[in-house]
């Protein structure tokens, strides 16, 4: 073991030096790092519990998702049946229980209808399943049922779009370095550092931003409104800010123009009343539709429906040409701006709910870092003194290993772009305590062997050899636990597990390899006749 060739010494020193160097950018404030030309170096990430900020977990409303899925299918079916030379007349469409069912008026056309429906279904999943099952019941009724893999595929594509929309909306808010990650089948995690008041963010993300323009059904009687039964072809829709008093209004079912045709939305002010409004711009198709609709319905009220609620229902005073329009309502500047952002970034394909939220004020984060740093420093000092008192020279070697280990952990974390959380600091402190364990094992073994009458060199050699095996066994089991934490843990636990795992790896290396090198170099030079341990 005394055989430590120069290349080995060199490679150990270089490896550790790199680890220590990697730690430097993380240990100095961000601004200073840039000044010393270290701005581009990897830094350790601070978790939100340390830097302050908000963590939100959004979950797709699966009921809403299934409903949208069926609604989309219904539209496709209607279009498909009207297509071509032979139109297929259908009726009695219902979309209850997540299924779409309708009957074909002419019994002879059932087969043709099924044939057309087949073209609407897509392969889904690995097993060659399609996304919808088509079945004929009672000879003229056709039932479309989404398959599991079909629903999964629909969720997946909806979540892809939703993640993009969430990203756009958060970018529009102008927050710094947000993290947006899809998690699992139906969740999105949003982390925004430094944000103190997440309510604006939550309000924005909670909006589906589905905008529709519909005509008001003026034929509905007050009784109908009160009872919630609308005339044929119309529906009763909530209208919370109705100046007329009733919180509902009857609207024609047909969507004249939808928010999909928007190309821009900006918050602005009404020149007369100075109220906050949202100015919208349609694409050319939407602009043409808007012009036609307003020409045909001049003088009639026209409702703007957002996420199933009417915002306002002004009269169309004159045809609106040129594709520019505005949405008025009881907005504040802030809420108008939020609506503009939501409309600009597109509608969410599915409603999202906040199922978990953690917000930490920046001050508290700073306090935690300070406390953690102080505690770490004191822990290192206590351990160093204790080791020195217990093992003398060998204790000092162990201490060198522990201190370098602290730097290397920081360096490796920076390199892996790992996140340091509050439990991570605890993991750090624990690692400092546990890192000496390997050296304790080695040194105790040396003492034992030396007491049994071995020469210093033999005692050292056996100490390292026998202890290394134990160290390996003990740390592999410890690493198993760390891995389990890492795989199963969420946020904080994961942060702890990362520090623990890195700490196990680096502490074994520094404790076994690095101190052995120091001891070997000393033995070679001093050739001691007694072992003072």
């Amino acid at each position: 073991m005394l055989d430590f060739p120069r290349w080995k010494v060199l490679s150990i020193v270089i490896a550790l030096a790199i680890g220590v160097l990697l730690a430097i950018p993380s240990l100095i404030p961000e601004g200073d790092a840039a000044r010393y030309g270290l701005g581009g170096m990897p830094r350790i990430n601070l978790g939100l519990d340390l830097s302050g900020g908000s963590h939100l977990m959004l979950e797709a409303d699966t009921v809403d998702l299934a409903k949208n899925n069926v609604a989309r299918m219904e539209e496709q079916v209607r279009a498909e049946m009207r297509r071509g030379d032979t139109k297929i007349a259908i009726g009695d469409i219902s979309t209850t229980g997540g299924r779409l069912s309708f009957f074909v008026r002419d019994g002879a056309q059932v087969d043709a209808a099924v044939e057309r429906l087949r073209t609407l279904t897509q392969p889904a999943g690995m097993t060659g399943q399609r996304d919808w099952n088509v079945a004929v019941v009672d000879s003229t009724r056709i039932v479309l049922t989404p398959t599991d893999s079909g629903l999964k595929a629909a969720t997946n594509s909806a979540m892809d779009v939703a993640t993009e929309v969430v990203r756009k909306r958060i970018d529009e808010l102008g927050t710094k370095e947000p993290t947006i990650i899809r998690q699992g089948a139906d969740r999105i995690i949003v982390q925004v550092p430094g944000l103190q008041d997440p309510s604006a963010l939550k309000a924005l993300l909670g909006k589906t931003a589905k905008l529709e323009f519909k005509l008001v059904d003026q034929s509905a009687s007050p009784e109908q409104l009160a009872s919630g039964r609308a005339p044929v072809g119309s529906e009763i829709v909530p209208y919370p800010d109705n100046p007329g008093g009733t919180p509902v209004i009857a609207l024609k079912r047909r969507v004249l123009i939808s928010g999909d045709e928007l190309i821009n939305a900006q918050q602005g002010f009404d020149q007369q009343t100075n109220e906050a409004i949202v100015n919208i711009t349609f694409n050319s198709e939407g602009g043409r539709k808007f012009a036609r609709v307003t020409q045909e319905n001049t003088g009639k009220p026209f409702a703007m429906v957002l996420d199933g609620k009417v915002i306002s229902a002004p009269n169309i005073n004159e045809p609106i040409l040129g594709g520019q329009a505005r949405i008025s309502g009881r907005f504040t500047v802030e809420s108008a701006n939020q609506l503009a952002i939501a409309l600009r970034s597109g509608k969410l394909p599915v409603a999202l709910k906040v199922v978990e939220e953690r917000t930490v004020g920046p001050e508290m984060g700073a306090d935690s870092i300070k406390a953690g740093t102080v505690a770490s420093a004191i822990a290192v000092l206590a351990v160093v003194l204790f080791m020195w008192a217990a093992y003398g020279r060998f204790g000092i070697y162990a201490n060198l290993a522990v201190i370098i280990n602290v730097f290397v952990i920081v360096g490796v974390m920076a390199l892996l772009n790992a996140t340091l959380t509050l439990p991570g600091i605890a993991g750090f402190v624990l690692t400092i305590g546990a890192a000496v364990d390997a050296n304790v094992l080695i040194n105790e073994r040396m003492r034992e062997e030396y007491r049994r009458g071995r020469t210093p060199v033999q005692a050292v050699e056996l100490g390292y050899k026998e202890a290394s095996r134990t160290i390996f066994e003990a740390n592999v089991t410890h690493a198993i636990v760390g891995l389990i934490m890492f795989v199963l843990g969420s946020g904080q636990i994961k942060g702890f597990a990362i520090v623990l795992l890195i700490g196990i790896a680096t502490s074994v290396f520094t404790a076994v390899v690095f101190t052995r090198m120091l001891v070997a170099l000393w033995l070679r030079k001093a050739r001691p006749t007694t072992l003072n341990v």
Partner: protein
Amino acid sequence: MPFLKLVPDNTNIGFVRVRHIAFILTALLTVASIAAVGLRGLNLGVDFVGGLMVEAKFTGPPPLEAVRANVDSLGVGQTTLQQFGDPKSVSIRLPLPESSDEGATNKVVAKVSDSLKKEYPGVTFPRYDTVSGKVSDELIQNGLLAVVLAVLGMAVFSWFRYEWQFGVSTAVAVVHDVLMTLGFFAITQMEFDLNIVAAVLTIIGYSINDKMVIDDRIRENMRKYRQMDMKSLIDLSVNETLPRTVMTSVTIMLALGALLIFGGHVLRGFTAAMLLGIIVGTYSSVYVSSSLLISLGLEPQKFDKKASSKSAGAERVGPRS
């Protein structure tokens, strides 16, 4: 220079002799822990029961009853107040509002903070967490799964590396450590949250580390002293590794002690759990897991056969000097 020695050289403490007393004591404590968990229950944080937690930091120690009355009067549901280690900080726990509207939780938070700000100028709200029931159920499941898998994983590992008796005795000792920690949380009613699960997992990790070192020495001595009877062999092994066991436990406790005193109130529960776990883990390593090997009928001859047939020719099996 004389070095600091916590354990004198060549100790010969009869750990195995007192194993029956140790087992009874351990069993009693374990039953007491389970009873405490069963009767008092754990003070589960919002991570596990779902709900809303607002941390309020006052300028001085707040009158808890008045604060409770204040929040209760807002009609936002059953209030649970809890003091942190820091006397100025109080955590206010509330059920999640029924409405699924995004604004609903914001409104509750705003209501509470406005009302408290009016009553106690200077109060700040450095942190708040809301967790829905669905997520909290998942967190419980994952937490339990993590603990169970960790115990199983290491039991299987030590079974493969050594003998099944080692796996069982380590698993029993680790389960004991976990139960003790849970009992501690039930008795003190300190908040049990996700961080504490991390602490429990850490205790498992440390405790296994500790037991592995002793197990490894037992295995080594079984090869070295083939004729020695199991009781003296285990005593010898535990005594030989005792200096290391104590030294390491003390260094880790030094480090954790620093964290407990200087690490701020947020980590206090976490650190307390780990400190306790280290003490319990060390106890169970010395008194429980190794002695249990005898009760489980570990025999050196049988072990030797397996070891030599499996790793014949391996360097370690060769005759020792």
